[in-house]
């Protein structure tokens, strides 16, 4: 259940990135109205009036263009920030494990797969993977199990082309539970690997 929810969340994040991309393009400026040549006895005054109208129309158009462009720039900045945030969310999304296991489940491999292009597009980013366990095993042996989980995650990312030196592994064993409680729901949330971005630029680049 949790895994399904996680995937849905991730998909939503990716969809929002795509929508944001569509909004980046500045709308085309309105063309100025065409001015028709004047004729007749009042041609001069009529021409002047037309010229004045054309000038005002051009000025209005320029003002509209400026306003549109400023709004577009602000929107683009907002969109870039939220896109970067979405990338950060994807890069730090947790993976979970079965009891006493460090094997990666298919849904968790998908979560790691989403991190690979982000890490590739941001080659100076360094991450820390922290392995956690539920409380059911030995307090001390769980430190080893947490380390194994972090190492399992790292091995997967390295297999997919991320440099070994960019991923640091640590273990918290059962010492930092995400959920309190002594039921399977709490245990499931606690058997996890967490990701922290420890180095690289503040704003992540899109893959």
């Amino acid at each position, binding site marked *: 259940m949790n895994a399904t929810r996680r995937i849905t969340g991730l998909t939503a994040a990716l969809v929002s990135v795509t929508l944001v991309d569509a909004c980046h393009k500045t709308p085309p400026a309105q063309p100025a109205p065409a001015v028709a040549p004047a004729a007749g006895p009042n041609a001069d005054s009529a021409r002047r009036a037309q010229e004045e109208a054309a000038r005002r129309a051009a000025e209005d158009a320029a003002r509209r263009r400026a306003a549109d462009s400023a709004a577009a720039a602000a929107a683009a900045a907002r969109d870039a920030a939220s896109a970067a945030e979405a990338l950060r969310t994807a890069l730090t999304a947790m993976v979970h494990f079965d009891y*006493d296991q460090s094997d990666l489940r298919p849904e968790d491999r998908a979560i790691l797969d989403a991190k690979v292009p982000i890490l590739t597009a941001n080659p100076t980013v360094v991450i*820390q993977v*922290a392995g956690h366990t539920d409380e059911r*095993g*030995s*307090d*001390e*042996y769980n*430190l*080893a*199990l947490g*380390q*194994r989980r972090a*190492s399992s995650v*790292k*091995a997967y990312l390295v297999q997919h082309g991320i440099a070994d030196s960019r991923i*640091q*592994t*640590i*273990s*918290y*064993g059962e*010492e*930092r539970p995400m959920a309190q409680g002594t039921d399977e729901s709490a245990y499931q949330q606690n058997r996890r690997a967490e990701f*922290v971005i420890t180095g690289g630029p503040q704003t992540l680049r899109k893959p």
Partner: protein
Amino acid sequence: MKVFVRGAGLTLVAGLALTAGAARAALAQDTTFRGITLIGNYDPTRDKISVAVLAVSGAFGDSLRAIVQRDLDFSDRFTILPVEGGDADAARTGGAGSGLNYSIFKQLNAAAVIQMTSMPTGIHVALHDVAKGQVVNVGDFALPATGLTREWRMAVHRTSDEIARWMTGQRGMAATRIAYIRGSGKAAAIRIIDSDGAGEITVPTDENGISPAWHPSGTMLAYSTYGDVGSRIVLFDLATANSRTLTKAPINVQYITPNFTPDGTSILYARSGENGSDIYAVGLSGNDTPRRLTVGRGAENASPTSSPDGRRIVYVGNAEGSPQLYVMDADGTDARRLTEYDFSDKNYRSDPDWSPDGRLIAYQEKIGPNFQIRTIRATGGAPKQLTSEGVNEQPSWAPDSRHLVFTSTRSGVRQLWVLDTETFRMRQLTTSAGARLGAWSARLTQ
């Protein structure tokens, strides 16, 4: 007042040993019983000796008597007879300092009477053999001038342990402390508590400290750190309160479960990294090159603990599936699984501790949903289950190889409890919630 005496023939005859020196000499020849000789089928693991501890005059006399009574009681080898101060005076045949009226103590079924007298620098102790009607052992014990301090209490505990040795040939284990972890997360701290639950202190632990272990001398603790603060093995000197990092793990590696070797020169620990966890040994000098003892090939080997002769090591490993106990030689050769294991079962066995007498290994095993404490002979065989109520974990032997401290949820939250493995008597040691990972010290000489 009803007095509980086990067995039919607990009649005392004359003590063989009139001095502590003679008692020690006799101890070398016979390990069953010494100091006071009992006639009949006395079984030191089941039968308790009935003891009366007389009131003590002078400053802190009441505390001194109460501590000695409790120490003897907690050793689970004595029944303490409730004798009021007035009874003791009435028991005397004459004025102060005269002999005891042994017939009264015979009626109480007391086998021994302990008489303590305050002295300028400590206490004078006389052990009376009731059946024989005479003093069979005496000793003077120094006490710190300031009463009720941690040091004073420990000196009284040492006195109790010597009195226990006079009566049974085996020293008590009251003069000991238990190091443990209290709390979790960033609030976790190493604490040290006396064996009777008094005198608790907090060790200034580095962040994320876990797995405290005693140096055999009782003067130093080792522990490991984990997580984002970096993993290290830290040595804490109890006399100076100085910490020093013995060794710092490289990146992507955690050092876990440190334990001293019985000679006190090295630490055994597990190095947990990208190729599983393996057991290493490193000297205490700080520039010793660690020696690798296991080759796990991706498995997790951890929680090493030495046999008391230092020749073998028991540890937990999962090379065959779920965590099991293995025993190997101290150089890492000849590893053999100690616990019986069917490939299909999911038994989880961990946290071994080798008894100081070398006979037994205590550990935790999943029985149903919960861990329970078990012991198994160091040579293998059928295990013995010692607990069944709540979750019971992390056993650590007392120096008498008879009592265990362990973590239990039987009161609702994790606390340390002490179990007598002979009588199954339990007592709660800690009262602050979240106590765990208890480690029982050797007998402390300071």
